[in-house]
């Protein structure tokens, strides 16, 4: 599953996605499932908007004092017997993980769901180094079998149909009886559990992500619905937490506040089934837990966002609500975005992390319908930041020159009302005549983007300003 970045091909990726019948069918689940569940959760909690404000304020405060909280966090982790590794970029993080694995002679590594693991491409890297990574989250496991990457940040296999999963399981789990029934989603989950159980027991290292890192206590927090994360971090000798720096949250109390908006925004649950706190390695007298506890703290471009117009993006808690409500995501799914982070949050974050030159398509591919901002529990102004990216692109002359010149020509007229009205008083009646018979125009040079799929409604006749001027003149005469 070598990670190939295709963000700059967004348009052609989208075309492929629109033609993919299975994908289109799978995407209807995003539209139907998540939205209704979130709505019900909202309706059941009148103070939800207040909680969103609190959550936003907590993260804003944290980001203003990030260095302070990061230091405090490291101190606490160290005190509890764990170790923090600072990784400036993906490569450094990969090497730190490899070293920890090698030091204990690891052959297999179990993994809980982690977007940072995707961001640094850890699976490929471990495989190249003869260490087998095993995904333990059902969705992640499915796409690992299929050799794919996640298409959604909380539902990685949302693009796969149940029937396709059944096919994959029969193809890979050849040791199980052929006649078994795999029709229900539960039977698929059961089978995955069974297969994974042995792997849990044999793994040398467990890697999890983190939803939060608590500065007050040096604790990492994960939320899951399958409990796989707990087994991943408790059973192996070594637990590696892989997290980016903005996951820091000051206190336990702060985390419990943000948790109240997280699951509700994501799946519409009040809380995820498991919320697991881990602090350091096993202490004397603990019944279980790892012998070593490591935290890889990844920057990978994030500290550059602090103090920039994109700082607010670092409040993101990866709930997925913005993509669940995005008409563009509904149309093309997550893979079209070409890298780890899809949907509106990806459209802002991806260019921040990989640069506007390669990521520039994403912030452009939005209708600015504003639904993402309306549902974001952290009140992140996503459309505004997509526009900021468009501004940077425009400043750097990175957008197509034809578009640019078209815009400049239009602006030239828009800034000169007299000239504008004169030009339009010629152009509009002509266009009106072209569409006179039917009231619409089927095709028109330079308007292919419009008329490929829709008719162009013809102008009624002359412009409003022309007609108005004439009326006013007649009124004057009558006086």
């Amino acid at each position: 599953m070598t990670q190939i970045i295709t963000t700059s091909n967004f348009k052609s990726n989208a075309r492929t996605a629109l033609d993919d019948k299975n994908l289109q069918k799978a995407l209807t689940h995003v539209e139907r499932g998540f939205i209704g569940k979130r709505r019900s959760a909202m309706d059941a909690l009148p103070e939800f908007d207040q909680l969103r404000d609190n959550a936003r304020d907590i993260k804003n405060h944290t980001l203003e004092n990030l260095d302070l909280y990061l230091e405090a966090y490291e101190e606490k982790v160290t005190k509890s017997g764990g170790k923090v590794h600072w990784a400036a970029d993906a490569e450094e993080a990969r090497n730190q993980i490899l070293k920890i694995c090698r030091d204990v002679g690891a052959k297999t590594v179990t993994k809980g769901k982690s977007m940072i693991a995707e961001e640094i491409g850890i699976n490929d890297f471990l495989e190249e180094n003869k260490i087998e990574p095993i995904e333990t989250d059902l969705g992640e496991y499915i796409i690992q079998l299929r050799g794919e990457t996640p298409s959604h940040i909380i539902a990685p296999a949302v693009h796969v149909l149940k029937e396709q999963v059944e096919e994959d399981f029969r193809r890979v789990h050849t040791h199980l009886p052929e006649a078994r029934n795999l029709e229900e989603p539960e039977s698929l989950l059961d089978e995955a559990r069974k297969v994974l159980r042995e792997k849990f027991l044999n793994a040398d290292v467990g890697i999890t992500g983190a939803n939060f890192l608590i500065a007050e206590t040096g604790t990492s927090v994960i939320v899951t619905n399958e409990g796989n994360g707990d087994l991943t971090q408790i059973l192996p000798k070594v637990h590696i937490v892989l997290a980016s720096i903005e996951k820091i949250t000051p206190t336990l109390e702060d985390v419990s506040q943000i948790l109240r908006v997280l699951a509700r925004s994501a799946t519409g649950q009040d809380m995820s089934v498991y919320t697991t706190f881990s602090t350091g390695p096993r202490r004397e007298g603990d019944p279980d837990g790892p012998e070593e506890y490591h935290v890889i703290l990844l920057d990978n471009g994030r500290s550059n966002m602090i103090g920039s117009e994109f700082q607010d993006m670092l409040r993101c808690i990866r709930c997925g609500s913005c993509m669940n409500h995005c008409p563009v995501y509904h149309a093309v799914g997550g893979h079209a975005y070409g890298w780890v982070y899809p949907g509106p949050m990806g459209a802002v974050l991806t260019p921040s992390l990989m640069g506007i030159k390669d990521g520039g398509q994403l912030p452009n591919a939005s209708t600015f319908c504003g639904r993402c901002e309306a549902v974001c529990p952290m009140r992140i102004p996503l459309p505004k930041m997509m526009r900021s990216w468009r501004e940077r692109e425009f400043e750097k002359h990175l957008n197509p020159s034809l578009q640019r010149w078209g815009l400049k020509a239009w602006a030239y007229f828009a800034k000169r009302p007299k000239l504008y009205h004169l030009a339009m008083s010629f152009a509009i009646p002509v266009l009106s005549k072209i569409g006179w018979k039917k009231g619409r125009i089927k095709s028109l040079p330079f308007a292919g983007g419009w008329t490929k799929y829709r008719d162009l409604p013809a102008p009624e006749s002359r412009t409003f300003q022309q007609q108005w001027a004439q009326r006013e003149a007649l009124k004057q005469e009558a006086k």
Partner: protein
Amino acid sequence: MAHKVALFVTCLVDLFRPTVGFATIKLLEDAGCDVVVPPAQTCCGQPAYNSGDREDTIAIAQQLIKTFEPYDYVVAPSGSCAAMIKKHYPGLFTDDEAWQARAQALSDKTFELVSFLSDVLKVENIDAKLDKNVTYHDSCSGLRELGISAQPRKLLASVEGLSLSEMKDSDVCCGFGGTFCVKYSDISNAIVSKKTDNIANSGADMLLAGDLGCLMNMAGKLKRQGSNIEVRHVAEVLADMTDGPAIAEAKK
């Protein structure tokens, strides 16, 4: 004394559908306003703003502010153009206090037509008649930036003979998005196709909305699909001006 209201007709209405401009004037005059149409107006600047061209956006905004600041109110028959002035103009001048104050002053007195009638002029009933079953699409900016949702429905309910059949997902984008619909025409088409399915399934024989961009997009798609659902701006119905051809229809 009557409010002096300046009509910002918006570029699309000016060019494609003057009827909406005249309907707006009628609604405002019926509600007792003194309406003026300043000639030095073109566009609110959204095409430049949303393409990242801040310099031209600022120039266009300054010109619009100068043109419209003498009046008591500025009203536009479009949620997205009104929202541009109301919600986005002040943010264009963060480095220029004087202009920011002027932008803010204009923002405070700028309104979208239907919400102006309903929220500011407190119009409760409309004197219009239409024997049709209509469905209403909530255009995104109007809905999410200006909170326009109940007002058009309330005023439509007072139109004699009219019934409203809500479509599924009336608050979901139609796929227009300004230049988005031509830059990403494949995706835009997928989005508008879902919309026209919902419109058709509502059983309504007329589609209404408050933004001409969205209306042209949906009308263009409906007509390409051979649908005979009529498409009109909500102002045309409220002003009782539905005798002329609907959007993308020929003269009878």
